[in-house]
């Protein structure tokens, strides 16, 4: 599509809406913002850096005047291509909207702008004995706005819940540039739960400009344990066994042999290098419950073949054990130039057979695969490590990905636990949703954004709307 003239007019309009320095369209900027941390690459028409909600609205209205789509973006740590610009959009980067606006320690609420980094919020409220529970592995880099878009999780979401359970209210700019407050700080609002719909909508319903999140009190007692196993099946069975015993730990993470060795070589967290799998288990809450549950975890683990059960003796050891887990993706960067990280969820009772299938798929496709994941909620993260320069490797990587997803769905699982659908898994949506299901989602998305300009082409596969389908009645002339 030829849009040169349009483009100049768009740029002029954007630069009159925002300090001209904060509207960029140079090749370097466009290249930097052509993708997120996933593999899909797109192209932006312009990249804007607003500093206030009003500026976000002004940019969205300017985009609307030129009939351009817009894509919101935080730190770009998303892995599903949710922030990849498609259809020459205006990319709206929220990283300069990075103020913590208000902390109410009595009501345990913080109002933040979308560009506030996840970990910065927890650090800012630590002196109050409070924390923000969702803790994605990228929490040092990812923004809370991005967390809202993807409904992000993290190890500690097992007991505390994912982002949706922690967001109370959101100020948003909708597709037409109008503003709305979704949700509120009263426990209930009249009407539909627009706040709940917006969380996890991957930027397709508008842009958050301020977010009220719930803060949780720090637990009086925390116990972190490392269990190691001589077989991956025993470790997986222990996960299922712990949940079946009625224990929902604060976090329950699993790492297989390959990743355990890689992490140990990288940070020296004291993980056993010869383990087939380790489980990192954290229990928190009141001391009696922590004692009870940690005893039970150790018992279940030993019954199911744990070789050792190590309990962190102090905060330093606890931090070291977590450093191992949270450094996993840094560790693999040393092994090969490329990686592909998957994200799917299976019922926790199906962990053992599904993991066996996942490893078999990697063997069949002759791929190096590691698993480091949120085992407690059945959220698998098979990680394929490879050298993209090897001929034919990408085909095998993609094929393995499709097969892994199919195996998870066949076991009663879903497509994504926390990364989102974005561009990456759009076409997989029919694996779990019928045409009627997808049509309902498309109606919801269109009701939020009739213009279709908010992050187009994400989440829903083409053909999701009934009208788009090739349903030709018999005898029709076409």
């Amino acid at each position, binding site marked *: 599509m030829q849009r040169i003239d349009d483009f100049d007019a768009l740029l002029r309009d954007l630069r009159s809406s925002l300090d001209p320095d904060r509207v960029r369209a140079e090749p370097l900027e466009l290249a930097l913002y052509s993708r997120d941390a996933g593999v899909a690459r797109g192209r932006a028409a312009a990249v804007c850096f607003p500093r206030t909600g009003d500026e976000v609205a002004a940019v969205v209205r300017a985009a609307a005047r030129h009939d351009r789509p817009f894509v919101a973006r935080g730190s770009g740590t998303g892995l599903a291509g949710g922030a990849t610009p498609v259809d020459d959009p205006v990319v709206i980067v929220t990283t300069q909207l990075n103020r913590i606006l208000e902390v109410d320690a009595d009501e345990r609420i913080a109002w933040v702008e979308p560009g506030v980094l996840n970990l910065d919020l927890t650090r800012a409220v630590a002196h109050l004995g409070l924390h923000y529970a969702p803790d994605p592995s990228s929490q040092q880099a990812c923004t809370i706005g991005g967390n809202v878009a993807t409904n992000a999780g993290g190890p500690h979401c097992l007991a505390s819940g994912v982002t949706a359970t922690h967001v109370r209210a959101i100020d948003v700019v909708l597709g037409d540039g109008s503003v709305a407050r979704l949700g509120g700080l009263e*426990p209930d609002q009249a009407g*539909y739960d*627009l706040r709940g719909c917006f969380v996890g909508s991957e930027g397709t319903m508008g842009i958050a400009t301020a977010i009220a999140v719930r803060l949780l009190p720090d637990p009086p007692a925390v116990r972190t344990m490392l269990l190691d196993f001589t077989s991956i099946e025993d470790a997986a069975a222990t996960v299922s066994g712990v949940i079946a015993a009625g224990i929902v730990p604060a976090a329950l993470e699993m790492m297989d042999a390959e990743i355990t060795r890689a992490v140990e070589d990288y940070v020296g967290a004291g993980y056993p290098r010869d383990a087939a799998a380790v489980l990192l288990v954290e229990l928190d809450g009141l001391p009696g*419950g922590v004692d009870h549950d940690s005893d039970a975890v150790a018992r279940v683990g030993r019954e199911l073949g744990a070789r050792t059960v190590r309990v962190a003796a102090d905060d330093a050891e606890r931090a070291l054990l977590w450093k191992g887990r949270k450094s996993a993706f840094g560790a693999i960067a040393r092994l090969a130039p490329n990686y592909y990280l998957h994200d799917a*969820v299976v019922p926790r*009772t199906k962990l053992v057979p599904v993991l066996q299938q996942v490893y078999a798929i990697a063997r069949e496709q002759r791929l190096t695969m590691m698993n480091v994941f949120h085992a407690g909620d059945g959220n698998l993260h098979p990680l394929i490590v490879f050298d993209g320069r090897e001929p034919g490797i990408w085909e095998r990587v993609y094929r393995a990905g499709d097969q892994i997803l199919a195996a998870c769905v066949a076991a009663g699982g879903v497509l994504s636990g926390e990364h989102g659908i974005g561009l990456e898994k759009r076409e997989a949506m029919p694996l779990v949703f019928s045409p009627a299901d997808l049509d309902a989602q498309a*109606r919801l998305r269109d009701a939020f954004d009739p213009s279709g300009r908010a992050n187009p082409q994400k*989440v829903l596969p083409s053909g999701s709307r009934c009208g788009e389908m090739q349903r030709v009645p018999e005898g029709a002339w076409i």
Partner: protein
Amino acid sequence: MAVTTAVAELADNIRTAEAVVAVGNRVQWEVGNPPRVDAIDVRAPSGVITYEPADLTVTIGAGTTEAELTEVLGKHEQECALDPRSDRATVGGMLATGLSGHRRLRHGPLRDRVLEVRFVTADGELVKGGGPTVKNVSGFDIPRLVVGSFGTLGVLTQVTLRCQPVDRVSEWSSTAEDPVAVLRRGYRPSCVLWDGRETRVLIEGVAADVEAERLAMGTMGGSVAPAFPDGPHRGRISVRPSTLRTLAPALDRAHVRWLAEVGVGTVHVAADTEADLVTARVVAEASGGWLLREAGAPGIDGFGVARPNAVLQERIRVAFDPTGKFSPGRAG
């Protein structure tokens, strides 16, 4: 098999009807506004479809009652902590009205409990939203949209809920102390209720923790759950929790009986006359909140407030139900 048949029949009825209202046991029938009288009644199937205790998830027909659900889960010492006022309430009815239970302070609102919903749309299609696993971001969050939608988007047929282990000890205790101070001294009590005179606290966990937590909060053990305010005209106020102290004396002056969920902001209200309930609504609005009519008071609007973002709300309703056949009149 029986369930499938029932859903197919339901879908046929809905496809051809002009106005439809899903009916459970009418426990929460007066919450919000009454549906138009010409609507035909439909019933969702009941019973457990799958229950996997080791996954902590249960899938049930939307017509399943709290009593049935509690019985099934109880055999495995699990619960969903829905806590409706009557165990005759159906899960579909609870989700439609969106009323969270009294243990919300610790266990979260009703919406956090729902993993997957299946419902029949206006054109008789069966639609699924969400998914059966405890964690899922595949597609838009239709389950949250359905909770509290008063049946205006479709007729719920099937629901998957997250379960939790029942705590070993569950104890009510009480004090005459200021409820906010009591709440602050605890870690995560399940419930703190206050009627202006007495604070009652529910603590759940292992025995040692329940005892220690009660001592920390400074309450006297051996209490029981308080009775919720009763009367011919009832409602629930939703306000920011920090406004409770100013709200309380105003409610007393309004001659209503009330019980507040401290730290949550829900205040249960009962009145002897419709006029008193209206006064309570005025008090709620003066504190920045609103009052949902739950029973009685036939002369007043069920919500009393304009829906926030009414245009967007209406677009969503119409997107799902273009002819307005579902629960006409019920939600607004």
